[in-house]
């Protein structure tokens, strides 16, 4: 590997895609018992971005405190992803 710039906020990329087949199957089984939310296409595209490691080091969605803080102070400079509300 050549010396490319390191990912943001982490030494390694953090893609959130499930690569392991049996883990994937487990999740699919589990999910049948869980509450399901339908996302709009922008939210789904964001989930794909999270899956693909573009949002490293984020591992999911922020709570209100972090979202407000990041929008105000750019605490991690991943400020924009602070507004990641998943909506009901």
């Amino acid at each position, binding site marked *: *590997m*050549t*010396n*490319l*710039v*390191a*990912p*943001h*906020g982490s030494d390694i*990329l953090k*893609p*959130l*895609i*499930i690569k392991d087949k049996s883990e*994937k199957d487990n*999740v*699919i089984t*589990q*999910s049948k018992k*869980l509450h399901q939310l339908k*996302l709009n*296409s*922008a939210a*789904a*595209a*964001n*989930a*794909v*971005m*999270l*899956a*693909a*490691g*573009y*949002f*490293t080091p984020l591992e*999911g*969605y*922020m*709570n*209100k405190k*972090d*979202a*407000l803080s990041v*929008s*105000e*102070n*750019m*605490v*991690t*400079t*991943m*400020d*924009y992803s*602070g*507004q990641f*509300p*998943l*909506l*009901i």
Partner: protein
Amino acid sequence: MAIQRIETIEKISDEDLSLMAKNIFGTNDIEHPGVKNFTSLGNTLISGSIKVLNYSYFPSDFPNTFATAEEIRKKLSDSGWTKVVAFQTRNPMHRAHEELCKMALERLSADGVLIHMTLGKLKEGDIPGDIRDAAIRKMVEIYFPNNTAIISGFGFDMLYAGPREALLHATFRQNCGCSHLIVGRDHAGVGDYYEPFAAQEIFDNEIVKKSLKIEIFAADHTAFSKKLNKVVMMRDVDDHSKDDFVLLSGTKVREMLSNGEDLPAEFARKEVADILKSYYQSLK
């Protein structure tokens, strides 16, 4: 398509959303398309980590173009590149963009340019992703030296958040392995909401400098100069007036191509224009 481990479910007030909008977009004016969208998403925040099952329609719809951050890193590394400048585009690339990429490559002494397209749902007047992709690939094939440009894409809609969005775009490309991002005039802007170079100046912010490793290549508009007979960056030519450049509006370009006309060679490469021309004619 994804499973979430819920940590908290919170209500967020309209006031807090408006405050966030002001901080992120620099305005809470509901006429700003980004603000309008942001404040229309509801009042519930669900926080927590997620794991994702698939990449949705992107791999099937854009098989040669969509790539994950990991895949891009591998491509850059396999090409032997270390210093990489990223160029983001949602439009086809004409000579002004081609030259901008080459200027960045040269001035940064970079190993290569990552041309990173935005894919995704189309808006009014957009050219489909596969047509843009073909046009950009043709340009690289003919007009870029071997092994100096890689084309890829991802799905991320424009938020029109100007400087803050430029930071986000830069973060994405750092995660892909790029050392630089080309940021021009009014990057990710809309209307008059942002000062022309605010999206470049934000990278001088102390917090940003401490955390982001990627740097920007601060650019201005580029266009073909009739005086110098080549594409130049506007800020490099103080003595030029608007009439010294070959400039065509998007509307004019669309109109000419739909009518089967050739674009001026100073503005567009023929091979690129031909691809777009046949698309527009197919719409008739």
